[in-house]
């Protein structure tokens, strides 16, 4: 196992993240602080970062409401941000 960076697709755009990084950490490292919109229109990102609060969810490889803080990046992973399905 090495630490070579991994490329994932966030809303179609490639970003690079260290191997082993969580999707939330990868998004935060790009300077993004919010990647979900609640039904009332409020922006949300990570809050507890340990998988408890479900604030940081996104659609990952087609699966909705995935907690990005406890999901590890994988090469070619497709992340769709935006909001509740």
């Amino acid at each position, binding site marked *: 196992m090495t*630490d070579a960076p991994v490329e994932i697709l966030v809303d179609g755009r490639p970003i690079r993240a260290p191997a082993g990084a*969580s999707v939330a950490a990868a998004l935060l490292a790009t300077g993004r*602080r919010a990647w979900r919109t609640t*039904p009332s229109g409020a922006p949300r990102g990570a*809050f507890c970062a340990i998988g408890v609060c479900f604030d940081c969810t996104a659609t990952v490889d087609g699966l909705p409401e995935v907690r990005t803080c*406890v999901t590890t990046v994988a090469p070619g992973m497709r992340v769709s941000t935006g909001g509740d399905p």
Partner: protein
Amino acid sequence: MTAADVVVVGAGPAGLAAAAAAARAGASTVLVDAYERPGGQYFRQPASVTRNRSGVQERGRHLAARALSVGVEFRPHTAVWDATPTDLHLVTGGTVSTLAFRAAVVATGAHERVAAFPGWTLPGVYAAGAVQALLKEHDLVPGRRVLVAGSGPLPLVVAAALVHRPVRVAGVLEATRLAVETVRHPWIGAAGLWAQGARMREGLVGTVRLLRHRVPVRTGWGIVRALGDSEVEAAEVARLDPQWRPVAGSERTVECDTLAVHHGLVPNTDVLRLIGADVVRRPDLGGWVPVRTPWLETSIPGVFAAGDCAGIGGAALSLVEGDVAGAAAACHALGREPVRHTARQRAALARERRFQRLYAALFAARPGLTGLPRPDTVVCRCEETTRGEIDAAIAAGARTTALVKSTTRCGMGPCQGRICLPLVEQLTATATGVPPVPVTARAPLVPIPFDAVRRC
């Protein structure tokens, strides 16, 4: 379906110790954890294999390696979604499975209490433990100018870790006036700190480091509001009275882009309550905790509870409780009489429980926290239920947490009330004067794919 003599839920300090003790006693032992790497929050390991580990992370790695070396089977990325007194229903990735057990040690730890305050849903507001987790695991600080606020040792530890990073720590606010209250409880203070050299050293080193970096550290101060349109731009802070109520007129604005907030920890009793273990409300221990025997067995025979999920006590108490519970669980599973506590276990339990009493006296959540949310403040982050809607439900006759939940939907989102229900419970009890009853735990505890259940 597979089976084990002993199953341990949670691979933090208590779970690692329990699994090792059970396996050493000759029981076939399975340790499950929701994360990829063992360690829990305290021993959280770096994601990068090449990064240097801290002393705490190194200790955690040794404990995990020791558990594996005595034959513990570790199942990472595996969460409990349902449980009975004889079976755990697990989900690994998208796959469900069932694990039968003769004895179980539940060591599910705790999650953070963050009081709802105006602006706390803005991006840039984090639980302090989140900032610590991102730092420990990903070597990442989610901001440039961080204000750390709340109560207990964690905010101090987080702030002290941040000063070596390319960020500015705008300040550390501790709600309790530590000097005043330690003098007020001299015996609890002296007893609690007896033989706690390492803890005192850590506190002192952290404080000195913060002061040397000119970080303002204030006790008797707290966060009252986060300011900003689409993310945090500043924080309103205020002096607090001994009940942690903001003192009118003392408010000040602190510029920051990130808030790390921590108002203590709440024992995670989901699995225990699903199994049916009796719980009692102990605000000094963080909330609802299981009733236990001296061998840490719950009201359900063969189901044990160890560590913070049975009352907030920290890693040192968790380690010795795990040791005791793991050995006792193995005895139960193998049909032996429980072994007596060793002299070392007795001494460690007594020492750490004295510290636990001091921690409770200084840092247990105080009534001022429930006054922070205003009528339009979101209390339930998932369902966006406001304080006003909760108050209205109580005024309309909802006298229990469960009734408030079912009339307002607060606590019914994907986090299942883990963040908001401790506060809702306090709001309801304060308004009605009715002693709280625990909310029923319901499966699935974590979301599981629909077809996964249909197949099983």
